[in-house]
């Protein structure tokens, strides 16, 4: 970002400085989409048996069907609730933990290696355990999502605080600012970039968590729909579930981007 302000618009061809018009970006994106989906549609049933890979038209038809009988919202809302609920709890918890630990002095040195050890655990394998602990309902899925997202939230908040400009903290000290002032005016704004990054990374993690937990044991949600379809050897159903998960991820990501643009407008 330093280079950006120095060189301004004069050297627009340097790294990451190139500007493309909106139309050329979107035309390209649509062409890639049409190409890939078109190939899938064309080859399915000709180059290979559509039983294995289904077909975009079949998937679209299934989505229409599910819209009609209310299945779509029934499953999607469950997964959304779990993913967003868990994401919120995990982000808040992880961020607070990161802030607390970064300011805890020697305590940080004691705890940090264990946080990293827990982080390296394949948390997906905890799904069966959570179902034993919290039952087959949504709370076990939310806990799974929390376990998936809390570490990235923690780590980003922690690193963000270590990267706070020390002069800004000194400056606040010389004006005799209380810690509440420092938190509101320096700490939180400084780590906003880091928190937003962790939210974006965690959208995918949250969906993985909720869907995995649903696959292991549930009676509702897109994960359940996928596992049910696979038991029926219904590949169209499996792909429909996957497409819906993707749609959720893209929409959530765009929402976070909007939030980011608003919060970081000072840059």
């Amino acid at each position: 970002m330093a280079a950006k302000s120095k060189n301004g618009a004069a050297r627009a061809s340097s790294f990451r400085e190139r500007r493309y018009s909106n139309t050329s970006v979107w035309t390209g994106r649509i062409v890639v989409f049409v190409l890939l989906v078109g190939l899938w549609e064309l080859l399915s049933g000709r180059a290979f048996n559509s039983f294995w890979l289904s077909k975009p038209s079949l998937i679209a038809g299934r989505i229409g069907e599910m819209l009609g009988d209310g299945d779509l919202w029934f499953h999607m809302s469950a997964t959304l609730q779990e993913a967003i609920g868990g994401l919120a709890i995990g982000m808040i918890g992880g961020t607070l933990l990161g802030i607390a630990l970064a300011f805890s002095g020697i305590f940080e040195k004691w705890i940090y290696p264990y946080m990293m050890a827990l982080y390296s655990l394949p948390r997906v394998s905890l799904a069966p355990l959570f179902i034993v602990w919290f039952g087959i309902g949504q709370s076990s899925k939310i806990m799974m999502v929390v376990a998936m997202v809390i570490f990235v939230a923690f780590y980003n908040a922690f690193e963000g605080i270590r990267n706070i400009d020390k002069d800004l903290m000194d400056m606040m000290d010389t004006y005799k600012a209380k810690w509440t002032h420092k938190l509101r005016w320096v700490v939180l704004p400084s780590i906003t970039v880091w928190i937003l990054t962790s939210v974006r990374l965690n959208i995918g993690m949250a969906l993985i968590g909720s869907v995995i937990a649903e696959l292991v044991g549930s009676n509702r949600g897109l994960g359940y729909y996928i596992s049910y379809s696979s038991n029926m050897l219904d590949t169209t159903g499996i792909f429909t579930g996957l497409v819906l998960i993707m749609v959720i991820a893209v929409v959530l990501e765009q929402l976070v981007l909007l939030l980011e643009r608003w919060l970081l407008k000072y840059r």
Partner: protein
Amino acid sequence: MANDKQPKLSIQDLAVAYQSKGRRTVALEGVNLAVKDGEFVSVVGPSGCGKSTLLKVVAGLLQPAAGAAYIDGEPVNGVPDQVGMVFQNDALLPWKTVAQNVRLPLAIKGLPDKAQEQEADRLLKMVGLDGFAGFYPKQLSGGMRKRVALARTFAYDPDIYLMDEPFGPLDAQTRVKIGEEFLQMWDAVGKSVLFITHDIEEAIALSDRVIVMSARPGRIKAEFDVRLARPRPFYDIRFDPLFKELQKEIWAQMSDEHAGGVS
């Protein structure tokens, strides 16, 4: 002030040591210095001589190994009420507008919104930035950001201004311009200043007294009274014979230092 005898700021037998990678580095040793109320004192010296360390001790941001700084006779312990610091890199909050940055010390003091606004308006006018209140620091030039930082410190209205190479990062032209403006503003408030710089001309043009420091460990090497009438023209004063004389003497002290450092 009734007690003109007592210096505003006094530093006695100050020593500061850093502990890094298991090695102890003495940054300052045996530093004695007094700044009178309303006096402008500059400290010049080669980089790494502990000039900035000196300021941090006075600001209460750094604990000395020996000796102490006293403000109005009280030893500095924690950040004292009377000091305001201007940082080399401005230390503006990038996510706050110009006006919000200037209001910061007033908001910390808990002034009512209305008073904060009026004071910020007045100060922005004083530093020639009315009309930029709603801008973010990123949108300003280096010189304008410096003006915001100065306005913020004036808003705090401290008894002692601690300035850590405040005009260092500016280009030569802007530096002279801001220096001149600052000198005028200072003439108006008449508070004590401890000014750190490596620019001899800047030090002489601004100060009542120039202190020369030696490098590692930092000690006070020489002291020069600047007997140039005030108010001074910040730039034209450079052509005064007295100025030239001082410049020569201070330079001799500093270059002597460099020769000594090698042997």
